[in-house]
Every structure is written in C-alpha cells, then in structure tokens.
C-alpha cells in the first residue's frame, strides 16, 4: 500500500485551501480497496499495534479521509460509512465505565474489528504475493509457432446405427403420450423417394412427370416413385398440373 500522494506529497492532513485535481481524487479513492484497507493503512502509517488500536485517534483520522471523500463529492461506498459507524460505536463503548462487579468480563469492544483486520491482512499479503508472481503476458510469453502443412480433418461423430435406432425407440415410447400424432405410415423407401422427388422438382418451373421415373428400377421402383408423388401431393408439398385430359402431367414444388 503506497502512501496517498497528491502532487507528489504525502497527504495526511487536508490543507484549508485544498485544491485537488479531479483525477487525483479518483486515484485516492481507488488506492484504497475498502474501509479495512484504509484502516490498515492508517495503522501501519503510524506504526500502531493492531492488537492495541488507539481507537479514538484512528477513528479521527479515518473520519478525515471519509470527509475528504465526501467533500470532493465522490460517491462514497456505503461500506466506508458502515465502518465509520462501527468505529464510533466502539469508541463510545470504550468510554463507558465498566461495572466492577460484572461476573463475566466484558469483551473488548475492539475484538471483532481486530479479528477482521487480521483476517483481511492475511489475504492482503496473499494478494501481494499473487500480484508479484511472474505472469503470462507480463513476464512470461508463450511460443506461438505456426505449423507448416496443417490440414484440418473433421472426424465423423461416433454414432452407430444402434444409437440412432435406440434414440428412435425413445421417441416412439414417448410418442404414446402424444396420442394425436400418428407418424410414419409409409414404407421408408417411399419416404426416401419423396425426398428425392422433392429435390428434382423446382418451384420456379415445371418438371415433367415421366422424368421422375427410371426404367432401370423396374416395376417396384415405379410404384415407389408413384406412391411418393401421391404422398407429396397429399401433404401439399408439390402441385400436379395437367392442362387437358391425356396431356403431359407436370410437377411443381409448392412455392
């Protein structure tokens, strides 16, 4: 924790005619990581034993800083005010005469504050250690060597047919819960052909019906294609057009 500096001079008392450039204000506030940090700073600056804090004096100094922060209209974190209240309370409790006849000795009002300061001090030290470590991008740099002849392969995912089918079984089981969906009546070869037909027909022009059939496929192929076309028409995915009876039939994707 470096001292609070304003224009290169350590700042412990506010001169009456204080002028603080706006930038310096933020520096001051940012310099302290919180009320405990400010208290520790005050304690260390005056070589005070944390275990025996002259609470009145420390409170006075703490308030000076808080007043500065207020005076320069910085939005003071509520925590600073909470601490101010705590200090004031400790101070007043310390002033109360302690009953001599008290059977149980009353705890030192400072005990909780001391505990927190000591605890915070440990982590402050840990923080300084961390900050001092050599770090990547500051003290350490990592080699970044390009690789010659790099090729990017994308291996296929590890999916087996069993995986696929067992996923479908789950769907089917679940589907029973959705009784209103009756799916997949047509043989798969028809569904596959539906996809193929859809790909062949275009939306911006007509495709001749007969061109969808391939002689090499035989009777079964013709039947499958025909069923596929019927199903596509039924699902309104394609339109059939015939200008007059016995004229050539044309197909068009419904778009």
């Amino acid at each position: 924790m470096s001292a609070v500096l304003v224009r290169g001079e350590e700042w412990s008392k506010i001169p009456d005619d204080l002028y603080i450039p706006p930038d310096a204000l933020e520096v001051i506030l940012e310099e302290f990581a919180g009320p405990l940090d400010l208290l520790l700073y005050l304690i260390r600056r005056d070589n005070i034993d944390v275990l025996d804090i002259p609470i009145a004096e420390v409170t006075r100094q703490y308030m000076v800083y808080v007043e500065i922060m207020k005076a320069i209209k910085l939005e003071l974190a509520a925590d600073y005010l909470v601490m101010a209240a705590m200090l004031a309370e400790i101070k007043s409790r310390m002033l109360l005469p302690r009953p001599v006849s008290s059977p149980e000795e009353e705890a030192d009002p400072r005990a909780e504050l001391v505990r927190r300061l000591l605890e915070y001090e440990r982590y402050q030290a840990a923080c300084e250690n961390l900050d001092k470590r050599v770090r990547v991008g500051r003290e350490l740099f990592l080699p970044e060597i390009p690789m010659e002849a790099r090729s990017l392969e994308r291996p296929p995912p590890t999916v087996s047919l069993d995986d696929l089918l067992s996923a479908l079984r789950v769907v089917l089981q679940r589907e029973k819960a959705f009784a209103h969906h009756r799916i997949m009546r047509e043989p798969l070869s028809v569904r596959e052909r539906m996809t193929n037909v859809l790909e062949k027909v275009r939306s911006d022009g007509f495709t001749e019906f007969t061109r969808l059939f391939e002689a090499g496929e035989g009777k079964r192929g013709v039947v499958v294609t025909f069923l596929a076309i019927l199903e596509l028409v039924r699902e309104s995915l394609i339109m059939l057009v015939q200008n007059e009876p016995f004229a050539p039939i044309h197909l068009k994707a419904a778009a």
Partner: protein
Amino acid sequence: MSDIRIRDIVQAALLVAGEPLTLERLGSLFADEAQPERAALLEALGEIRAACAEGPLELQCIDRAYRLQTRAEYAPWLNRLFAERPARYSRAVLETLAIIAYRQPTTRGEIEAIRGVAVSSEIIKTLLSREWIRQVGTKEVPGRPALYGTTRAFLEHFNLTSLGDLPPLSELRVVAVDQAGQGAGLGDQAISASGEATDTEATDTEATDTEATDTEGDRSEAAR
C-alpha cells in the same frame, strides 16, 4: 542478465511474436543505447537458422520478415494435435436425425411435434454441417419452413444402401412396447411419466452439448 545474447533475444521474439518480424521490428526490441547493428541482427538470424537444423523448427523469410515455423515433415504428428475429436451427439440430435430419416421430407415443426420438445437451431445446424441432412424444399404453410431429408453421406456413414435397409418402424415399435412392458404393469400414466423424464433430459442436453467434443461434454457434465 548481462549474458543474454542478441541471438537469444531475437529467438525469443521470433518464438512468441505470432507473426513474421522485420529487421526493424527486431531492432526495436532493444533500448536505444543498446541497439544492435543490422549486421549483428543478421548474424543472430544466421546462428538461429543453423541451430534450428537439429530440431523441428526452421527459419523462414517472407517478404523481408522472419518467422520460425515447424518443418513440414512434422505435419503428420502435429495434425493429430489439432485433430478434432470425434463429436458425440446428444440424445436430442440423435432423435432429430432418426425422425428426419423415417419421416422425410419433414419440417422442424413436425419433428418438434413428434419429440414433444423444441428442436434448437443448433441441432439442425449440427446435422446440416455434418451433411447428414439437407434442405430439400420448403413447405407451403405460413412461415414457409424448410423441409429436411437425409443425404447420401448419411447412408454411407451408417453403411446403408438405401433407407429401406433401416428396420421398419413396426419392428421398432414392438421392441419399444417390449421395453416399456418390462417396467411391470405400465399404465398410460407411467408411460407418459417416462416420456416426460426423457423430455427434460433432452432439453438439458440441447442447451449445452449439441456437438460437444468428448472433453467438452465431460466438462459441462462436471460443471453441472
């Protein structure tokens, strides 16, 4: 510290720069008073080149800038370093793919209706980029949804000559009923309950690991 040689500094810079370095840029590493001569830098580069002869790196000069790169001979090993691990598809992706296979041409809405759960665009994108499905058209209903079908690559991956090689649905249904029956006296409720359970699972996975690589999958699992 004083025994750090120009050559070591130049080498360090070439290793970490991530881009080729010109002589000017190399010179700028040094404080003004310690600025080496051009010749000294060139000498350092020469030494580095010579020292590299042993190892996996080589010094390249591209358009008057220098860089260290691995020798091409190392590509077979190094490619394995960057090889993507085979992805593992989530249940949601598999279900979607199965429904497209059996129900094609079909829309995302139809898949959602069957799965009873939303199908994220991630899932569709995953399957499209893997080229296992493709868009074969659009459906003439409001919103004009895309119609998807499976591809030749899909058939090839699963070693099928045609979709007809897939077991017919009726067979799967029987197995499904058998499996459901093992739960002893399952009424409608029980079935719908198990349906719900898988639903949640599906939505869970959808969010995170659509095409998670193994490690990513593990990580997100650990994070949960």
